[in-house]
């Protein structure tokens, strides 16, 4: 066995040696081409799920795509391995290959991106959903969203549309981030109807991320709310949201999607019919705006860009036309938030 091992190792070493010999020519020419600072080389590191999640990651991709259409350049997109243990490697490799700027999608990169940004002070980094302030890396920009403001409008829409004066909220994981959705939603609903009942439930506790990807449990939780009398349920539960839609379809009730326009991304027409609206988190706009500012040299590192209602960083989707009749009311609330007349809380009242 040991001899076998030694031979195998020797063989693979030899292979490695000749492979890297052949390669060196190709890479050299490639890297010299990138030397001329005009070509934009954008690195995009996805959250678990990668491209094709029809939500968060795809939205980031759309933003980069739009930016490339405008400024030219090329994109390299990377997904982490199955257990996402190589997040730091993704960022390091992109930086080593001369990609600049590098955009990390999702708060899971929060710690790794700070470490890597400090190692590559000449490269600009951005992180979606995590704060760059006070992290000590002045080449890192945080792209944050006022999810509470978008969710406020979702709450307004639900309160205006409910016939039973009873609505629901399903959170994926009981974390700070999802609390913002809940707080805004409840505040919006009670602003319209102070006596409304809002059921709130989380699928998994903090520290257990399964709640973002468990449609079966999402379905059970939403079913419970519909059985209890709710007729509209808003979910902030990632992949588990599919279960919420299924429960709504089965109960003949309605649901509100999250992050992307889920009316457009869900395939099944039966489920499409129950998606009244979606709370949009315009990751694409935020990413595009960041690349714009990178191109014109106005990136301010070490700080956060907050995308809220005033910048259309969050909002409601109108696909399907279910909320067209209450559009003026929603716009009114939106204006009040933008003007500062209404301050939307970020922590839910218990």
């Amino acid at each position: 066995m040991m001899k076998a091992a030694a031979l195998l190792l020797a063989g693979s070493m030899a292979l490695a040696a000749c492979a890297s010999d052949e390669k060196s020519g190709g890479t050299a020419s490639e890297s010299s081409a990138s030397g001329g600072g005009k070509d934009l080389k954008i690195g995009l590191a996805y959250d678990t799920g990668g491209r094709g999640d029809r939500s968060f990651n795809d939205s980031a991709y759309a933003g980069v795509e739009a930016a490339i259409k405008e400024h030219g350049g090329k994109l390299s997109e990377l997904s982490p391995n199955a257990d996402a243990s190589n997040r730091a490697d993704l960022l390091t490799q992109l930086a080593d290959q001369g990609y600049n700027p590098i955009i990390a999608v999702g708060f899971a990169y929060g710690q790794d991106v700070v470490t890597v940004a400090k190692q590559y002070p000449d490269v600009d980094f951005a992180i979606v959903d995590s704060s760059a302030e006070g992290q000590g890396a002045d080449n890192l920009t945080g792209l944050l969203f006022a999810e509470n403001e978008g969710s406020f409008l979702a709450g307004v829409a639900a309160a205006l549309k409910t016939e039973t004066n009873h609505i629901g909220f399903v959170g994926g994981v009981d974390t700070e981030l999802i609390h913002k959705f809940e707080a805004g939603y409840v505040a919006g609903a009670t602003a319209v109807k102070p006596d409304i009942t809002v059921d709130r439930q989380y699928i998994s506790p903090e520290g257990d991320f399964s709640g973002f990807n468990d449609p079966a449990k999402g379905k059970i939780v939403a079913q419970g709310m519909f059985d209890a009398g709710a007729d509209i349920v808003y979910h902030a539960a990632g992949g588990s949201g599919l279960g919420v839609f299924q429960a709504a379809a089965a109960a003949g009730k309605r649901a509100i999607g999250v992050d992307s326009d889920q009316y457009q991304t869900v395939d099944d027409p039966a489920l499409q019919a129950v998606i009244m609206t979606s709370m949009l988190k315009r990751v694409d706009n935020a990413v595009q705006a960041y690349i714009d500012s990178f191109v014109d040299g106005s990136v301010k590192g070490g700080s956060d860009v907050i995308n809220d209602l005033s910048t259309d960083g969050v909002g409601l989707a109108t696909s399907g036309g279910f909320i067209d009749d209450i559009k003026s009311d929603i716009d009114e609330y939106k204006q009040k938030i933008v003007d500062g007349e209404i301050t939307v809380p970020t922590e839910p009242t218990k």
Partner: protein
Amino acid sequence: MNALRRLGPALFAPVLAVVVAVVISSVVMAALHVNPLRVFEVMFDFGDTPSQQVTALVVIVNRAIPLFLAGLAVAVAFRMGLFNIGVEGQYRLATIMAAAAGAAVSLPAPLHVVLIVVVAMLVGALWAGIVAVLKVTRGVSEVISSIMLNFVALGLASYFLTGPFRGTAAGTQIVSTKEVPESGWVPSLNGILGALGLANPPRQLYGFLVIALVAGVGVAILLNRTRFGFDLRASGLSASAAVASGVDARGMVVKTMLLSGGIAGLIGLPDLLGSTHAYTTNFTAGLGFLGIAVSLLGRNRPGGIALAALLFAFLDRSLVPLQIADFPASVVTIFQGTIVLAVVIANEVARRVTRRAAERGTAEATEAGPTPGPGLTPPPGGSTDARQEVQA
């Protein structure tokens, strides 16, 4: 001629497996309109500068260390015919307990590390011990109980992280335990890289490598050179025969599971003591399950497991350059899958070929006949190595 004859069967299985895996995945890649030659080229490209190349090696070794420990933990139980599928829960629970214990005390450097390691091994062993006790007292299959205890362990780890052991203030998105003070860290081996004349990479080579190697050598000696190891392997080959020759079957189950769980407790420590210094909500998960594949690939022997772990780590690292070169990352997944399948099949083929050769050998003369005794091997291992060991 004689040397070739001896080496032939031992080499046959792994080489056959790798060749078959390369051929099958090349065919799949070609069907997907991906040039397999380019793919292999990218996989073996470690970068242009010495610093990048050493970084690549460090990344591979750092990833291989926890995989090796996971494979070792699974293999110890496997050799006795026990399927410890609970390695996942054992190491997650052990890691958070070790992180909490390490953060709670302040000791001089070597003692602090020893304490953390001991806590991790104890927790892992105790958690695996539940499985063993259920098996020997109530006859519960270890497969069922160890899988189900995984869920309990993950739930407990989640509870401890967000409850009593929470170290981060409210408002942070990634929750972690309190940081282990520096005296509890295992220093990196980058100094040794420098002494070897290699470039000093930005990544730190985990010092836990030394502890993992000690564990590997220890397990090898324990299995092959001690009475305990002999009893363990004998029970794995034939429980009834082992009992008949005086082995305490129940005691062996408990001891083996404790050992397997103790090693499982080490899996999270390279990352914990080498880079993260705290258990967080996104601490690497799933290593326990990968360990099963690594152990199978390494034919349940420490040396083989080390190679298998390196191979998996190598494939894992190539995910990034492949994506940068615009190849689908699924290429690596296909490759990993075919390798595991090919190894299982190749082991079986090699076993039959050797047996036939041995039978022919016995018929002709008696000098090369299959000798029972020290050549005890478990199921996927086959008798190839047994014969090698006997003859060597």
